[in-house]
């Protein structure tokens, strides 16, 4: 679906703004919403661009900057933290050669932290795009990244 088609699948009302923004973000390879798209959405629901921007900046799942194809979000809250005996973030940082908040040069991975994702009984947990990964161990984390990396470049690694 084109961006226009996604937007127009919702009624032209400002209360559908969040739904549209999430849908556009999900459709895009690099999980962000560009200035032009903000413009399109604003004129479709007849609100000012600044209003769309205020919504964009308020919600952490939305971004105006291109992110990796795979957005890795590691849970940072207490239940995951106290069960994280190997340091999930550090493991990923070392594997990908980036630090929190960065995207790899190849544009495949971004590393972020997220607030609790409701998997405290299977801590530590992380989220990559829409997939949730739980009961993480160092091996499991590396496995997941290797698999995604393989997928992304035709399984050559």
């Amino acid at each position, binding site marked *: 679906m084109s961006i226009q088609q996604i937007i127009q699948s919702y009624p032209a009302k400002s209360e559908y703004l969040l739904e549209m923004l999430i849908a556009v973000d999900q459709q895009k390879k690099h999980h962000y919403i560009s200035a032009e798209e903000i413009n399109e959405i604003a004129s479709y629901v007849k609100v000012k661009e600044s209003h769309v921007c205020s919504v964009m900046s308020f919600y*952490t799942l*939305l971004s105006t900057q291109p992110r990796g194809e795979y957005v890795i979000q590691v849970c940072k*809250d*207490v239940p995951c933290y106290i069960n994280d005996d190997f340091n999930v973030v550090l493991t990923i940082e070392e594997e990908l050669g980036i630090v929190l908040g960065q995207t790899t040069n190849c544009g495949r991975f971004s590393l972020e932290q997220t607030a609790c994702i409701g998997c405290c*009984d299977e801590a530590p947990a992380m989220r990559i795009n829409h997939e949730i990964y739980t009961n993480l161990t160092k091996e499991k984390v590396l496995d997941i990244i290797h698999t995604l990396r393989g997928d992304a470049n035709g399984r050559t690694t």
Partner: protein
Amino acid sequence: MVERRELTKRFDQINPEQIQDFLALDGFSMLEKALKMTPSEVRDEIRASRLTGRGGAGFLTSIKMDSFAAETGKKYIVCNADEGEPGNFKDRYLMEKDPFQVIEGMCISAYATGAQEGFIYIRGEYQTSIKRIQNAIDESRKHHYLGTHILQSAFSFDITIRQGAGAYVCGEEFALIESLEGKPGRTRVKPPYPAQEGYFSYPTLINNVETFCNLPFIVRIGGDAYRQIGSDFASGTKLISLSGNVKHKGLYEVPYGTTIRDVIFKLGGGTPNHRAIKMVQLGGACGAIIPDELLDMDIDNERFQIFDSKMGAGAIIVMDDSHDLFDIIHRNMEFFAHESCGKCTPCREGHIQLVKLIEKFIINEASQKDYDTLRSLAQVIHDTTLCGLGQTSPTCILSTMEFFPEEYNRRIAYRKRGGQA
């Protein structure tokens, strides 16, 4: 037997995507029963049950419901599924393992109050919940449990899902309404309350997922019988999200009156490597942190009311003696500093200062003056902010000042001695 499974009785017994499975285990039969009663009779049962809101605040559901029922014209029912409190995962389980029960609860609530439209506001992170609930809505519509003339009655009601996009504060009633309207989720001044002026100024009844799920149960056994379950303080069962340093982490359903220790040891099996429990946080990041000695209290003990927290949404986070108190408080405060919507100054600026003060305690640089500032700032945030976020966030500081004074004193004394342990 510590557990009493009523809301979770169908968990793992049914395929959550099959309406037939749900119907086979008396699904929607309580809606049928309710439709044979008058709306006010249904509300009478709910009033008799003394059901309290399961989202954390613990307000009597019937008060909200009755005042909403008195409103006329267009009005909305909203199911608050923006579960984001660290340590809580009960709503996710309810939506993923028995999504039709949520629909049934919302239908009963709509019938009892005369609402025709409803929303379920689910946080964007819960994609599986969104998928399951959407399927449940579609299937229910197909089988005439949603839509016009439900089960050939005069009652019509329909539900739409709305997604959150990553903002903890949207679990607060008015922030949620603002978000539903397509705006940043910043709370409004109360009153008027949502039941009078909510979504686009229409009366709006907002309840937590678990609260709605209690309604079929109340209709099934009757309000008086429901009142018999639990303790003097609260009736019914409570879903407990047990996590942290505990052998069997998971979701448990227990009657109110169960002690915290029973949940941790009888259900959770204690700590994994027999380390001592140093502290337990109740309710989530906004809850009180208590020492081992207090674990024999009920899950709804009045003593926690001084911190406006009690059990909150029902999380129990167990931490053994390998963890540092200030490290945990620091994590909690960073969470709130990040999640503050920024509307109230004490919350927006205060949390940043709380983080800095706690950092001083972590590096043994805190003085008695820092302690006093920390205490008064926590109290100011608690007293002066508009919504539940700032009102409850300082709880973990205020509670630990009461229950772990020696930890604070030790850090202050360390500095006094010039860094000599």
